């Protein structure tokens, strides 16, 4: 305990905890909708796009990578959703195509324009986010806080409409809601969260933050509101726990947080099975 308090006196640890909690909160809220709409793989696809964009930003020697990464990811989210049901290439194949292309292109770029002498180290860092959470600046934290606040406010304001669109898109549209706009809103928010979450867990592990809390909460609760709240609480608790463990044991932050999320899911699964949900 004393050791944790000592670590918390360092600003970079405080930044990491603040950003980690915000990311966990936002990703879990959106996760409920994504899982229920069968959109889980969109988060995964976008995270690979974000990886490609980071590599491109590094190759272009941009100091502030978010300037490139955020717009590219948001644009991909919009494109992925827009192709939707009527496209020639079906949605899931499209996502697989875009995500592997981005991954390959990213790796290629990192090889052609190495930022440091250690290419595999850089790739590993971007994919698994090993240290970037501990090198955040005050500006990064501010950006993260603004984006998270925007995600939270939009989620609360549109909560009932997000529920309606998630539960039954056709019905919502038939009663005059612009369901495609809400899908777009969800996609943009997910893209923003993916970009934020790259700092915490790296691009390969982002989907875990999005889907695990929602899946765990669904083992325990039966109403949309309780699933959403439980998912948020669980996600924040797992993130804090994961970061604490990683600081004390010196393990990689992202992988530890995801491992805690996975363990929480197993616990919820067992509780759910015992209670017969």
């Amino acid at each position, binding site marked *: 305990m004393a050791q944790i308090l000592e670590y918390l006196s360092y600003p970079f640890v405080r930044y990491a905890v603040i950003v980690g909690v915000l990311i966990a909160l936002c990703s879990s809220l959106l996760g409920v909708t994504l899982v229920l709409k069968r959109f889980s793989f969109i988060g995964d696809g976008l995270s690979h796009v974000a990886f490609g964009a980071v590599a491109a930003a590094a190759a272009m020697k941009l100091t502030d990578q978010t300037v490139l990464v955020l717009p590219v990811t948001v644009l991909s989210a919009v494109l992925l959703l827009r192709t939707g049901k009527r496209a020639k290439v079906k949605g899931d194949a499209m996502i697989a195509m875009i995500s592997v292309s981005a991954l390959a292109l990213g790796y290629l770029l990192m090889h052609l324009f190495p930022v440091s002498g250690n290419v595999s180290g850089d790739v590993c860092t971007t994919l698994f986010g090993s240290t970037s959470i501990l090198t955040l600046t005050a500006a990064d934290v501010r950006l993260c806080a603004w984006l998270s606040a925007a995600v939270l406010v939009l989620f609360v304001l549109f*909560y*009932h409409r997000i529920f309606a669109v998630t*539960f039954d898109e056709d019905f919502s549209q*038939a*009663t*005059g809601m612009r369901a495609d706009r809400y899908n777009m809103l969800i996609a943009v928010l997910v893209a923003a969260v993916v970009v934020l979450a790259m700092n915490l867990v790296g691009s390969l592990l982002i989907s875990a933050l999005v889907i695990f809390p929602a899946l765990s909460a669904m083992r325990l609760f*039966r109403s949309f509101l309780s699933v959403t709240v439980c998912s948020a609480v669980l996600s924040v608790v797992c993130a804090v726990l994961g970061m604490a463990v990683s600081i004390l044991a010196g393990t990689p932050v992202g992988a530890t947080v995801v491992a805690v999320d996975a363990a929480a899911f197993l616990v919820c699964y067992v509780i759910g099975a015992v209670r017969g949900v």
Partner: protein
Amino acid sequence: MALIKCENLTLGYEGRPVVTGLNFEVNEGDYVCIVGENGSGKSTLMKAILGLVQPLSGQIIFGDGLTQNQVGYLPQLTDNQRDFPATVREVVYSGCIAGMGRRPFFGRREKEIAKNAMERMGILDLAKRSYRDLSGGQQQRVLLARALCAARKILLLDEPVSGLDPKATIEMYDAIDRLNAEGVAILMISHDILAATIKASHILHLGRETFFGTTAEYEASRTGREFMAAP
């Protein structure tokens, strides 16, 4: 004036017509069943009335002060919803959103509407139960209550009894009858031609030949006799 009037309507996907030159109308208190073979465009017609697909040509006119977002809709159950974590109350309330304008949260009026709809469907005691734990018949009544929250004068039902057991089917038909007796017009896609001719005031037949008229006219017509005689 009719609640819904279709004039010379042509419907289809990607320029290929499925239904051509369709004329019919639904008036207050009518009970119209849409029948016809698979692929004859029954669901497409319903989606066009709901504004989910654009007609290739022709017009759908809403009258009697009815606007498109005041049409109540009971879609077919989707797989997505079978394991959806939501209470009955949450599902029924979501029918009220159309009438809320830009307000983000439900007010007293929406609570009133939702309670009234649940009462009419006899599911008030299920309000706190989870939707995914209900039987097929109960789920359909929950969705019908949600449709009632959005509806003023007319309900569109897409095969409301498909997948229900005989008892639940009878209960569903009774619930629809009660609503119709209260003055709600019904436009329903049905695969059950016998039930359709017993319940409906008018029949709309889609297929090689289109027919629209009262049930008695349909039973006397060649289209109707052939369709009803088919095994």
